[in-house]
């Protein structure tokens, strides 16, 4: 019944317009010619052509075309299948007549429903039959995929930060880079206006005041309102352009809320906190801080900034307030047009199409002309899109996120996923003997290799599908826990938003296809005769691949264990390093900001005296800088009287402290004397003595601490005498090198530090509060323990540590699952051998050794490979720390030993089972 013409032959004569009424839709025609159920091509095409002509006559061309297309869609595969075999039939049903090559052996199409049903049945049977290996495969893959998804969520979130601003392409942050390529976003407030004035490319700018306005906010009536202490991470002062540059929606009030001095915009959540359900717009807020008391009018309420924003403030005061000299309260350093004091940050908006690199060069030339002495510093424009994560690893600009960490996490995710896939490859190829006979029989019946590949691949897809479903359950179930752990509002929905889904999908598919494909190819390659004869043996190649994969899995696991140990040790080291001071039982009370009237200094003195008289206060001091917080500020231009060139560019940290500071914090004097009470009472400009720490002594160029005592130091026009040298201590976290610090003697009401005796803390706090409230009514009693506050600096490290321990735990768990499966398989293979050995008198240890030796060898090899990797990674990580642990050999030896132990336990679970079993039972199998 050969076809009389091919698919196109019938229409070759008609060459009319594209939509000739004589011709049915071309695409439908093509579909029909390609996907007709086998054996029905001719009749269907012919019948439909007739039907088309009929429809054209009865219902018109458009509906005819529509009906034709619908009919084709319903008739083609896979929606339709021939229910009966083409007739007339030959004697053997497996011989085709319609394929055009009579007599050729035909195999059933692999997507035929009957075959699909068969594959599915077998796949599920295999899953249930090999419960251990299926369980291991699915659990391992699910854990791997879940980890991958979690990490992808995290990376997606990090990548999405700051990307939502409509002006993103034209917004830049101004950075100043010093000679050592270290860049900071703290710049003088006068810089941005000057740049805008000089360069037409800059369309607009917005400054924030940085960390200078922390203080106490009182709602409503300044006398009786509620007071809240707010830090610089909650509130700042910004230019009026803020809401124009950044895309933060205003919910109520003026659209240009910060045009006038003494105005403030408030976030929705803070409006609720301050005013409850009342409308905040028009209300008054009193801010008490170093700029004195200011009463601000709330002009707008804005939606809380999204979690994907690096800019996170709840109160935005108008920076214009500070442009009025009277509002500075004597803080001349904070003048908004000054170019000397680095405390503010600035964003600029460039004109569309302006090239920021070209502008940077112009700025550089201008700056060199204006300030030749600042030739080392470079002004950079950092695109807002790269403010959180740098454009590349080689970009030295300061960022709010950590690109390196993102890369490390990403590789970690892929490695864990790889370990899970390797489990699949190992277990499937190892147990291929079980499938070999099936392959043989299928081949004999007439399956081609491609059909077998499809089958095994399909089985893998099923397994993979189950794992993905399980992984999704794990992710959704553990999301809350994970979010708490890392403190970010993550969810699966972030991934598609950040364009990373393509990468995730690609990684998942490549890995799946590669691992599934490898297994499918190796399983389908068996020779039917050999497998059916039973002379089939495991191929050497497959064995080597399996060994290599086990070695890889364990190398990664060992490297991760070692890295985790290094993290733990480093963090422990940092938290327990000798700090050069004693922070135990130290309590800091923040000073009052409200009601600093004429009687204030008197009340302060009274408070301090009463404090020292309390029986449980052992020591007491005041300062405006404490360890664990930043300094008062950093300054350059401090030199010896006859400075060498460039000496004036070195930066020093300035801390103003009183005469009791050094003894209270348990620091020691290296040389010379501590400052005296008399020195501290002089006003800032009258001070003529100071103290240094050892690092400052070195940087100033004194040969020793002893030599420095009694010498003079020049700062601007003023000269100071060095009274003493404080032994180096860690003012900031141990991660950073000790800064050169200059201590200026000053009495302060900013921080009062007391050392308490250790018992009954609650009562003491109550007494302290009563005392404080008595002297400073209207101020919240705000205190913290210095050691807790100090240790908060290690939060990031702690998070890294937690993430790493979880990741390495998962990696080794998945790797062990695989090893467990392999051991189970080996034991099953050698049941008889073990039985015979036992009958002949083999001892238990020798049997255990028999099974374990092979695996242990692999793990030992993995140690050899994994250790250098771990060592390299750990030393790179430690390079960021100024004070770090030694990478001693035992860390790596210990990790290796741990891996061996875990592997041994895993294998023994199986080999013990084999060794204990009654040999008679073992010999009876088969």
């Amino acid at each position, binding site marked *: 019944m050969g076809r009389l013409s091919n698919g196109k032959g019938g229409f070759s004569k008609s060459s009319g317009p594209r939509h000739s009424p004589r011709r049915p839709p071309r695409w439908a025609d093509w579909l029909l010619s390609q996907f007709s159920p086998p054996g029905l091509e001719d*009749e269907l095409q012919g019948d439909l052509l007739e039907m088309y002509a009929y429809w054209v006559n009865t219902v018109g061309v458009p509906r005819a075309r529509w009906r034709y297309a619908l009919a084709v869609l319903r008739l083609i595969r896979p929606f339709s299948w*021939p229910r009966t075999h083409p007739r007339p039939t030959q004697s053997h049903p497996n011989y085709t007549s319609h394929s055009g090559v009579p007599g050729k052996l035909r195999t059933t199409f692999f997507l035929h429903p009957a075959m699909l049903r068969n594959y599915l049945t077998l796949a599920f049977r295999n899953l249930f039959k090999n419960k251990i290996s299926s369980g291991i495969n699915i659990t391992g893959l699910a854990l791997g995929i879940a980890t991958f998804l979690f990490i992808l969520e995290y990376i997606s979130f990090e990548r999405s930060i700051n990307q939502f601003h409509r002006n993103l392409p034209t917004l830049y942050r101004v950075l100043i880079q010093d000679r050592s390529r270290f860049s900071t976003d703290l710049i003088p407030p006068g810089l941005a206006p000057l740049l805008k004035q000089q360069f037409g490319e800059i369309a607009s700018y917005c400054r924030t005041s940085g960390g200078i306005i922390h203080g106490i906010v009182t709602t409503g009536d300044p006398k009786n309102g509620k007071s809240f202490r707010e830090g610089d991470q909650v509130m700042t002062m910004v230019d009026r352009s803020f809401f124009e540059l950044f895309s933060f929606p205003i919910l109520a009030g003026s659209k240009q809320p910060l045009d006038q001095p003494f105005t403030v915009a408030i976030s929705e959540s803070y409006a609720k906190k301050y005013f409850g359900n009342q409308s905040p717009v028009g209300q008054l807020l009193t801010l008490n801080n170093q700029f004195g008391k200011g009463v601000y009018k709330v002009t707008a309420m804005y939606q809380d900034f999204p979690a994907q924003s690096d800019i996170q403030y709840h109160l935005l005061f108008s920076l214009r307030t500070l442009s009025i000299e009277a509002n500075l309260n004597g803080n001349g350093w904070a003048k908004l047009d000054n170019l000397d004091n680095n405390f503010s940050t600035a964003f600029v908006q460039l004109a569309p199409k302006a090239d920021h690199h070209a502008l940077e060069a112009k700025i550089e030339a201008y700056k060199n002309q204006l300030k030749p002495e600042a030739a080392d510093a470079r002004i950079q424009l950092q695109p807002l899109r790269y403010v959180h994560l740098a454009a590349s690893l080689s970009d030295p600009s300061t960022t709010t996120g950590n690109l390196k960490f993102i890369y490390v996490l990403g590789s970690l995710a892929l490695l864990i996923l790889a370990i899970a896939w390797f489990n699949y490859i190992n277990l499937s190829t190892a147990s291929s003997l079980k499938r070999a006979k099936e392959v043989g029989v299928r081949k004999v019946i007439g399956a081609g290799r491609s059909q077998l590949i499809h089958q095994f691949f399909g089985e893998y897809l099923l397994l993979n599908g189950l794992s993905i479903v399980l992984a999704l359950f794990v992710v959704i179930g553990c999301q809350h826990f994970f979010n708490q752990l890392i403190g970010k509002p993550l969810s699966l929905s972030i991934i598609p938003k950040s364009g990373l889904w393509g990468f995730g999908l690609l990684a998942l598919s490549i890995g799946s296809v590669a691992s599934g494909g490898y297994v499918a190819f190796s399983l389908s390659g068996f020779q039917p005769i050999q497998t059916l004869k039973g002379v089939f043996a495991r191929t050497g190649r497959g064995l080597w691949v399996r060994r290599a994969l086990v070695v890889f899995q364990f190398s990664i696991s060992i490297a991760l264990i070692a890295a985790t140990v290094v993290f733990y040790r480093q963090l422990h080291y940092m938290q327990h390093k000798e700090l050069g001071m004693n922070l135990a039982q130290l309590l800091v009370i923040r000073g009052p900001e409200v009601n600093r009237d004429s009687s204030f200094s008197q009340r302060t003195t009274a408070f301090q005296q009463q404090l020292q008289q309390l029986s449980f206060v052992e020591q007491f001091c005041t300062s405006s800088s404490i360890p664990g917080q930043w300094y008062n500020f950093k300054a350059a231009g401090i030199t010896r009287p006859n400075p060498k060139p460039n000496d004036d560019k070195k930066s020093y940290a300035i801390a103003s402290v009183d005469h009791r500071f050094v003894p209270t914090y348990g620091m020691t004097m290296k040389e010379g004397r501590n400052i005296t009470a008399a020195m501290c009472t002089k006003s800032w400009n009258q001070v003529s003595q100071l103290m240094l720490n050892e690092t400052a002594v070195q940087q100033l160029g004194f040969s020793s601490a002893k030599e420095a005592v009694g010498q003079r130091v020049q700062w601007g026009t003023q000269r100071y005498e060095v009274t003493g040298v404080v032994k180096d201590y860690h003012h900031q976290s141990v991660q950073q090198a000790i800064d050169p610090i200059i201590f200026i003697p000053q009495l302060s009401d900013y921080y009062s530090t007391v050392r308490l005796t250790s018992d009954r803390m609650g009562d003491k706090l109550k007494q302290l509060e009563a005392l404080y409230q008595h002297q400073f009514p209207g101020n919240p009693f705000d205190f913290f323990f210095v050691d807790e506050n100090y240790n908060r600096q290690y939060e990031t490290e702690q998070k890294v540590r937690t993430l790493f321990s979880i990741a390495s735990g998962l990696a080794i768990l998945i790797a062990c699952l695989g090893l467990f499966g392999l051991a189970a398989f080996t034991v099953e293979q050698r049941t008889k051998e073990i039985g015979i050995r036992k009958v002949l008198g083999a001892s238990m240890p020798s049997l255990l050794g028999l099974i374990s030796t092979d695996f242990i060898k692999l793990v030992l090899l993995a140690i050899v490979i994994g250790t250098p990797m771990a060592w390299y990674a750990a030393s790179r990580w430690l390079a960021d720390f100024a004070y770090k642990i030694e990478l001693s050999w035992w860390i790596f030896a210990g990790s290796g030993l741990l891996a061996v132990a875990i592997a041994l336990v895993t294998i023994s679970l199986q080999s013990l089972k084999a060794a204990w079993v009654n040999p008679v039972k073992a010999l009876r199998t088969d």
Partner: protein
Amino acid sequence: MADYLYDKVYTNTDCTDELVPATMKRPYLGELEEIVLLTVATLQELAYCAAITQTIDQQMARSVSFPTVHTTLQRLEEKGFVSSQMGGATHERGGRQKRLFTVTAVGQRALIECRQVRSQLWEQIPTQVLQVWGA
């Protein structure tokens, strides 16, 4: 080991489903099947899918789609009510062959039985009622 092997061989008969003659289902005639079968009988040697569809379309004032008829015919053939052979290529079908259907003996019997059942039921309706209906 040997048992295992046989196991698989038997399992494999799953996929040979279509190699053995289609299992005879209970020779039940659905309503649409009956109409299609009747049309095949009406059209005699001109019964092929397109013609059948058009006939039903014209005579029954009821729109029935081509794929439905096609599937019904396949089902009828599966049940053994019709048999088919190829033939009759014409120019208007682009020179393609038709699959021509004929009612088999089983099909004839089924149609006759069907009519008998119906006439029996018709006869049981009281004459007065039929008169009221005007039938």
